[in-house]
């Protein structure tokens, strides 16, 4: 967490950019700072800033702080905030798109959040499911071989316990039945994204 720097200047152009370019950003003006989103967030304590504060910072033009924060990466898309927001602000969409935009604009490369997110996405895209071992391994070894080994060994005991408890399996990764169908869906989604960002 970083406090604002009184010696700097925060350009309100950022707020305008969010309004015009981020999915759901035009609804940010409806936010009345009640804090129901932050209060409802199951992992709010893990975030640099809760959604409420993040929105306040966007409006204040605090671009660096917003784009480098882990808030949007921590979001698990449980949609509690969206359901509860009294003003209909699509909090989850805004966070998801902010994450995407932060990668696009080069703010998020590479850090913990993006590394994990990439491994997660690799698994989801490849198998249609997430595999605990593969996601974790890919994430750990993205730091390099030495670091990957160290992290894996550090967590060996946890892995053992999880296997014992039936929370992690050995053998082939789970996958969806219709992998081809999944690929088709993803292809279509990419097409739509391409079309919308192009227009």
């Amino acid at each position, binding site marked *: 967490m970083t406090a604002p720097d*009184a010696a700097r*200047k925060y350009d309100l152009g950022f707020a305008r950019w969010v309004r015009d370019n981020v999915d759901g950003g035009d609804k940010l*003006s409806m936010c009345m*700072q009640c804090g129901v989103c932050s209060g409802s967030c199951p992992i709010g304590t893990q975030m640099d800033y809760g959604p409420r504060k993040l929105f306040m910072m966007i*409006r204040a033009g605090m671009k660096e702080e917003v784009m480098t924060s882990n808030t949007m990466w921590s979001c698990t898309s449980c949609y509690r905030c969206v359901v509860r927001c009294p003003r209909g602000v699509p909090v989850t969409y805004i966070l998801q798109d902010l994450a995407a935009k932060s990668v696009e604009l080069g703010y998020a490369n590479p850090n913990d959040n993006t590394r994990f997110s990439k491994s997660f996405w690799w698994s989801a895209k490849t198998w249609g499911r997430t595999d605990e071992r593969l996601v974790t391994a890919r994430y750990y070894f993205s730091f390099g071989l030495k670091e990957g080994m160290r992290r894996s060994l550090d967590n060996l005991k946890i892995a053992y316990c999880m296997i014992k408890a039936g929370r992690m399996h050995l053998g082939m990764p789970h996958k969806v039945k219709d992998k081809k169908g999944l690929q088709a869906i993803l292809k279509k989604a990419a097409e739509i994204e391409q079309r919308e960002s192009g227009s």
Partner: protein
Amino acid sequence: MAATEKKQAVYLCEGCGISDAISLDELEQAVTGEMRVPLCRRIDACCGEDGLAQIKKDIDKGEVTQAIIAACSPRVMCEEFDALGAQVIRANLREQVIWSQPAGDENTQMLATDHVRMAVAKAAKTEKPAAHGPGASSMKLLVVGGGVTGLSAAREASKTGADVVLVEKTGELGGWAGKWSKHIPYASPYRGLQENPLPDLIKEVMGDKAITVKTNTTVARTEGGPGEFAVQLQNGKGDEWDVFGAIVVATGWRPYDTAKLEPLGYGSSPHIVTDIEFEDILSAGLSKKTKKKKSLDVVAFVIPGGADRMPYSSGVSDRVAIKQALQVVEAVPGAMVYVIYEDLRAHGTAEEFYREAQEAGVVFQKGEVISISSDLTVTVRDDLLGGEVPMSGIDMVVISTGMVPNSTDIDREPSQSGADQLKDDIDPRVPITFSGKLVNGGNGAEPDKAADDDEPALPGGPILNLQYRQGPHIPILANGFADSHYICFPYETRRTGIYTCGPVRRAMTVGEARQDAQGAVLKAIQAMRAADESLAVHPRSGDLSYPKINHDICTKCRRCTVECPFGAIDEDPDGRPHINFSRCRRCGTCMGACPVRTITFDNYNPQMVADMIGAVEVPDEFAEKPRILVLACENDAYPALDMAGINRRQLSPYLRIIPVRCLGSVTMLWISTALEKGFDGVMLMGCKSGDDYQCHFIKGSGIAEERMSSVGETLKSMMLEEDRVVMEEVSIADSVRAPQVLNEFADKIGAMPPNPFKGF
């Protein structure tokens, strides 16, 4: 009334459980025996058809001129008993005896007997009041100010059939609101900008034959009172005199001093403007094609906090900021519009308006604005953001200001001191004499205007230039707003027959001002009608009694002329008080002020209450039954005690409660009478005083407090404890607290040794 022979009768009511709780046989014996009232009847229920008929029969036969009805509180069944034709005196046996005391108790019986004794003593000294003479009957209304409030007031008055003269200082009608392009919504559904209502309103007024519009005209002098205000109107060409029944002051507002915004950054750039200046930009039009578009891409409306500005903005400038923000969004598509606020006060229907602005994309950003630099960087401090954030990239900053009331005329020679504007009623510099001697340390010379003036004078001179002894101004309370009893009588000023409305009373929007004008006009019409019938206006509406002064006894001490909360009393050339009856509200503050007790009302006077106190039977010091006198204000304290009775809250049986018109009417004679008679304690129970007063006569309880401050010395000289005489402030809602306060006081007095004057 002339001295016709008084024939009294006491009617003891048996209804509502009175006959079960006390022995009416004993009471009847006391009435015909020691009280020497020839006629005493017991009636099933005084207020019932049979009961009323029985009383009426006695009155019609000419056997009774004063009916003393010992039944319920004087606050109920008034119409029924007043219709009987005789003067009715009430003894409150229900609410304040049987409902607040244990039944069948010896003390309850004593209390009931004392209530009847007091009523009988009261009857001896009271007369049915008669009007002071023919009323003043002008039904023409003067409206001062040609803005939205004044125009609405004139139109509303004309609709009721009154003749109206509308006076406007400038050459044009419409005022500030007339110049603006769009307005804060003033009609349902309170969403969306509304068109300026002024052009239509001006057309209506100009087409109204009952309204005479005088532009470029001011009020030079105002004399007289309700029903007979003689007003000198002045325009460039000359003066003219006219007579009016009442005056509505709708002089509106002027912009908040921009010099006070300079520390914030106002003036450092041409792109930092006030909301009032921004109205001009909006009126000129924000077309997409104009070059303005570029300069209005990011606009920030700043609503600064600060206690100094607060009273003048009062939620109005917040709504103005919302309105202007919406106007920018509508005129410049894609513009980024901020409203930066510390406290956004969008109350009532403005909530809808606020939400609409949010939906249109206006960003409401909370934060304390620290500074606005010349390059339009707005630095905001907010705890959630964790510090100061300089926000840049703004094209124009609009600062919210406020509406300063035009309670004075800025074009006129200013008053020399704040006291001249009567923020405080009692000017400490006016020397008060008693029996020809100065009593408050004055030097007898003209008051020194420059001395001890802690309240700075407002800019400008008086609006109406009242020719009253208490000065030319309509009294103000705080921040220059006209004084009024905010809860009960919002339009009243402390000058009867003169009503303020619109932003001179408090900051308000066009919609609110129009409603305000309606209210004030209705009160003004009431005042004119009351003056016509010689009746009092609020709060003693319809009261015929009026203060009488015996000029042979008067010492010309001037206390009454100084202390009257309504400036009703002037001085004649000899220095004797001259009461303007139509200005008088019958509170009796003059009566309480008079050191020689020569100001009286027919049905309320110093001797009457003194005799009531004297009529109470005080047991000797060995009986261990103390007596405590309670002088309770009949506006709030007395009803609160009645309500306590209705809820069966028990009161100490040693209290003897007498209602008074206002604590301001309490004379020290009553306190000394009570103490000499052997009462062990005295409590004055009235309304809250001070800046947030609730006194129905505005200054009465404050004046009482001031008078009480010297009672301690007197008590000491009588070798009595100082805390035997106290004053308490209660409100009408204090039906739980008021009895507690009284009972605690009774316990405290009970613990003291008895009053040594008992039995002398």
